[in-house]
């Protein structure tokens, strides 16, 4: 059996006093799209630096296709492509010049490189701007040109660190369509770091990082299903008081999730009026819905009301970041 694309065993990292990663263990199978979801400062970027061979971890070990990232960095670099938070393009050069430069770094040249550049730019819909300087391109085009840079040498694993940061919704959709076309064409394994839940929803599997620890890991549907089906979500100023009250009066299962209270009666739609009758004055709003990945994050990260991680994840990106 071939080794997994990514195999992380008990990786820890500490910058001076700050513990950025704590005992992270996870595997990513080949040809999967794995999403690492977490707010800023949760350790995603540190983990990416370790996997891209730029930072040796202070504990544990990480392997890419069975090769240790600190012992065989060059062998690992051959197999991975990395798309950073900022496009790694020279703005004064044209897209094509940037890709030719990138090709030289991987020992590619001549007709093979030309064909590859043309094919990628065509796939990513950048072909008609190939000879424009990068500084003249829109944010979305730059990101797609940078994606072409990361994919130029046909890596088996592509690391994407918040690749759509700063893009508007339309540009993000175009970016993801391009990623999907390339996955279909080349079967690349993707590891995505994001703090956007709708991006995490696209993934085959999701790992949730909170404060440097991997607190959940599984298929998005499975993680959400663990929190139950359709339930009532109550926004209130005093979730603990309300929980005690509801449990005493109705004997219904409840759970505090961040600043909201999840109430799981047998028949939620029928229960809603009764709930309002009993404690309506303490309810700011009550919604009937299925759990989201944000709820999963809140439950597993143990986020308490008023915690600054409470709104750390975004449902979607703001129109202009």
């Amino acid at each position, binding site marked *: 059996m071939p080794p997994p694309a990514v195999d992380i065993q008990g990786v820890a990292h500490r910058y001076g006093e700050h513990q950025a990663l704590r005992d992270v263990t996870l595997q990513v199978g080949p040809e999967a799209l794995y999403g690492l979801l977490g707010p800023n400062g949760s350790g995603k970027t540190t983990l990416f630096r370790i996997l891209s061979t730029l930072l040796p971890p202070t504990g544990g070990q990480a392997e890419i296709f069975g090769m240790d990232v600190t012992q065989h960095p060059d062998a690992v670099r051959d197999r991975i492509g990395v798309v950073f938070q900022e496009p*790694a393009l020279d703005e004064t050069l044209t897209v094509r*010049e940037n890709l030719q430069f990138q090709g030289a*770094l991987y020992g590619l040249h001549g007709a093979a490189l030309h064909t590859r550049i043309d094919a990628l730019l065509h796939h990513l819909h950048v072909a008609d701007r190939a000879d424009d300087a990068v500084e003249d391109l829109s944010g979305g085009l730059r990101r797609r040109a940078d994606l072409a840079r990361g994919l130029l040498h046909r890596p088996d694993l592509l690391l994407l660190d918040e690749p759509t940061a700063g893009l508007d919704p339309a540009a993000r959709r175009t970016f993801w369509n391009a990623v999907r076309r390339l996955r279909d064409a080349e079967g690349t394994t993707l590891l995505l770091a994001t703090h956007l839940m709708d991006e995490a929803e696209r993934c085959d599997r999701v790992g949730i990082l909170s404060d440097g620890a991997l607190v959940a890991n599984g298929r998005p549907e499975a993680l959400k299903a663990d929190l139950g089906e359709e339930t009532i979500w109550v926004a209130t100023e005093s979730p603990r008081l309300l929980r005690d009250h509801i449990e005493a009066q109705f004997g219904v299962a409840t759970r505090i999730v961040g600043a909201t209270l999840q109430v799981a009666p047998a028949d939620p739609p029928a229960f809603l009026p009764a709930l309002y009758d009993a404690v309506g004055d303490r309810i700011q709003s009550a919604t009937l819905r299925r759990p989201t990945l944000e709820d999963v994050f809140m439950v597993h990260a143990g986020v308490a009301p008023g915690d600054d991680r409470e709104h750390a994840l975004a449902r979607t990106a703001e129109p202009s970041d």
Partner: protein
Amino acid sequence: MHALRTVGALTAREILKFVRDRSRVIGALAQPLALWLLLGLGFQGTFQPPQGAAGGYGAFLFPGILALVLLFTAIFSTISIVEERTSGFLQGVLVAPTPRTALVFGTTLGGTLIATVQALLFLGALPLVNLSPGWLGVGMVVAICLLTGLAFTALGFAIAWQMDTTRGFHAIMNLFLLPLWFLSGAMFPAEGAAPILRVFVWANPVSYAVSGLRHGLHGFADPAATLAGPAVCLAVTAGFAGLMLALAVWEVRRPFFRP
């Protein structure tokens, strides 16, 4: 072979960037030209050349101005490293399976060629100062230009690699780039200076570059105000370049993100 390809690509990139940025081309030439004209014409009547020296202050200052063009063009060709190291472009190079030493050699080679071409453009003013170096003399000038360019792009690389902001880079440069030039025998002959200054001039590697340029520009006619013979000037400049390259290579091979 692979490493050479990387060096070639990085060198070509430096040159393309420089040529596309017209303000950099003009700025790197106009400033030293203005300084040369102002000082040369300003001191024309008062400057006493050391015994045996031909020409006025303009001719005396000429090798020093070449050195100034070299120092500034070479060092400031590396300023983009500060931003590219933090923003992503250079991280893209570091995650590629290519030796980091190639990053140093490609970048410094590009900066060196730019600085040398800029300095050589200045040779167009030679007839104005009545200097005739001859082909061998021009060869000497080219050799000193290449070695000095290499030394200062490597030094700039080593400093830029440590900096988080271009402001910090400018601050460090201003701290010692101009003093290095002032104390190189470029503006005044070392023999006539106060003894304490003379010590600084002798200890300053740039002095040997300026002396080497003097030898070349005067066609090895044993010009005044030189610290040592042509061979020693070449050797000191080459040694300095080697030292700076070693410093840059040592730095770039350390882990990229410090724990």
